[in-house]
């Protein structure tokens, strides 16, 4: 081939190289390298990431009953002071025939 053709071919090749180099650099800049651990905030737009904690399966150590050094209880919750009255049981027996009756 003569020089003109070589010039055309080489110029196309160099142009393609230049474009691909530019593209590669630009694409690398856009994607983040690391994951940022954070907490969601309802008041503003923030990046929130899910924290990938591995599933921890702590095995219970045998059949012994656990012994605690410090035990404290809050006051009894209000609903735990309510006693189910006979009418509540009547109501439940009626509802068993409806909601409690599951048909496969």
């Amino acid at each position, binding site marked *: 081939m*003569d020089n*003109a053709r070589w010039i055309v071919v080489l110029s196309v090749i160099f142009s393609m190289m230049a474009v691909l180099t530019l593209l590669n650099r630009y*694409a690398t800049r*856009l*994607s*983040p390298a690391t*994951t940022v651990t954070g*907490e*969601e*905030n*309802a008041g503003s*737009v*923030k*990046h*929130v*990431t*899910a924290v990938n904690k591995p599933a921890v*399966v*702590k*095995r*219970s*150590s045998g*059949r012994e*009953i*656990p012994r*605690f*050094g*410090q*035990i*404290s*209880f*809050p*006051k*009894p*919750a*209000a*609903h*735990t*002071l*309510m*006693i*189910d*009255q*006979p009418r*509540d*049981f009547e*109501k*439940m*027996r009626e*509802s*068993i025939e409806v*909601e*409690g*009756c*599951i*048909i*496969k």
Partner: protein
Amino acid sequence: MYQTLSELNMRNIGRHGFVLYIVITVLLGLAIMAFALNSFKTGAVTQLSRNVDQNRLALVAQSANAEMIAMIKSRVNLVPGSNIFNTIRSKVFLDTASPTLPLTVELLSPFEPQETIKLAKVGYNLKVRSSAVLKVFRRSIYNSMLAYNGYIDLESKAWREGAGEITMEAHERRDVRLIDLRHTLDKYALFVKNYCNDYNNTSRRLIIKGVRSDDDPYDISRVFIGNDNYPTCKDPRKDLWFDLYYEDHNGLKGFAKIFGQNTLTSFPGIPAGYPVFNRLFYENVKPFNALGGVSVDMFVLNPQVVNEFERVINLAADACMVQAGVATEPYMVAANLREKCKRSIAKLSNPNAYAQMMCQDFVDKANGGNYSACKEFVKLLNTCQQNWEYRWGYTDAASLWNVYTSGCPPLNTTLPDRYAGLSSIAMGAGNYGPYMAEYRELVDGNQYNHERSSVGVMQQFYGEDNDVPVLIEGNAYLRFFKIAYLDEFTANVQFAAPTPVPVNIRVVTNKYLRKDKTGSFLTTQLGPQLAPNLFDDRFMKSRAIDELSLNTLWGEKIKCYNGSGQPDEYDPMQSPTTIIPRPAQPTGSTVEAFRFGRVVDFKNASWNYVSAADFLAERAPNDGRTSDGKTLYLDGFMYIAAGDLDLSGVTQFQGKGLIYIRQGNCTLGNLKRLNDPPTSDSLRIYLRRGDFKIDPAVDNVKICASLVAFYDPPQSDNSLQQGNIILNNRSNVTIYGNLLVDSLSLQDSANSGLAAGGKLYIEHDPAIYNAAATLDGTKLDPYHISIGPVKTSFSFRAGGSEI
């Protein structure tokens, strides 16, 4: 050369033509393309391009929703410090009052799902905005069940940056169930509605250990002991009695307060060679004269007094015979003795002889075996009144009966006269001692009260070391026994003789007599109080002391929350003692124990299963997570319409839940938490119509759960309509949680109780007692939020503008 130049010129002309040819070809190609493209409809291209965009954006929006729901699920129950966890609890489960419904709670707004963006952004600059809002619209209809229905609305919008006119919005809705699993029954370590005759069983033992709190003394476990379906009997008292045992209880404060000491003692003044009873907790003596309420007239038929008088009269009759110079006659009693006296008088015929005077008095006044009118007999009685000493002491059942032999009641007991008033079979009827014979006596076709024969050693309620108090409710009484007698004496009696005659009155055993048998000195109320402290004892008879509340054994005021949730004190040491007949409930409520149970609102169930098999297939898959059995995954309130639920293959559980079985039994083997305590994980199993069965293939069973089997409707006397725990002859069963049943049977002829020597140990789990406890600095969470797996609503919306 000319040819070469011509050739060169020709070649140049060719090259120029070639380039021109290429250029024209390319231009022609471009022209063709331009013409072709120009003929396309430009709208279709745009539409095609937008379709592709929308599909991609829809996928991204769905992915964003999925990411949100995954995040919510992973944090709502398991990450206590997270915003999602705290927001729901602070807005929905209020300390003071229920929230106003409907209630809207923003969980995530606005939110950028990073995982989705990361996946979708490769070569494509996407934007996603999401939000999740919880709406709570319904509360359970029962006051005792704190549970809500709601749903989460998830919305995600996705668009390509710079092309904001193309957006895709995905909306989906998931059902949510929010529940506080705590219930009033949690405060009970043990609750048994029906009468059980194993509370003094020595061959099958029950040990209960309550909770303790390090900073609030009012937290205390309760135990309810019921007496429903008490066997039919004439006894007006259909109570439960728990036998004191020195070795177990002498260290408790109540023991020392009841008896004034906690050491063993014996009766003083026991003759040499006579067996010593050294198992008395307290003993005392009073002169007969100081007793009040009884008089010697009540002893006119007393064998010891009568026998001694007959001996004296026989001697008098013999003296007459001797003085008359004739042979004496054999020893006689009653009417025969009277005839003997007549003959003696006839033989001697000396009205001034002292012996004849005595015989004459006997002949004139004796009436068969009743000598009360005889002057000489009255002298003897008066001597008894002056010399008798009444001795009594208190002891336990194990000291009077052989309580460690099998069979009920324990029969093979024979004790010397002084100690024989309760248990010695020689003093009773039907080969039973007086105490058991009296209660086994048939009255109107039924035994008076056979259940009182269940003597032994009470089960342990304060833990193995007797150091953790519980508050015992129900008709539960402490029982110990008094043995009493009038002691033997020798004294001189001034009969119709110049010199006093020595008489010896042997021990008068004060045997037991039922109080409905009036007219005897044994059942006549005395004046003074014989008891040292706290209880009442005003009878001479040997008897059971069975009117002290069982809580007295603890020995001091017991702090507790009353039924209204207020700090209170129960004083078991007040006199007269009071029991707590009903389970704890608010002031004004009078629900009987047999009606206690747990109602559930089925609309609040997070999972519903037709059968136990369906439940197990889904909730306890064979996932190989642990090597020694399946894992049960709990998720809130789970309802099973029909059992039987076989959890024997399940050895651990994870999560928090209530399994409510409408009808059917539940088989359990070893079952523990997967995660090491302290953990909020907890398991509650409620059987509405069924029994718990301990897997017969496993011994030494330990179950970490709250187990409740209350048959609905309650209070049937049909044994098939009771909630039980079938122990299947196991040796050791430990329940770390609590146990509430209609009926409890530790020993059963059908081997459904414990094995001989077996033990049922119930330790009240603090995480069950109050699921909001703080254990070793870890605050437990009593709430559970279940998110449904099904999208109950799903829609896309295209177009719109970016956020």
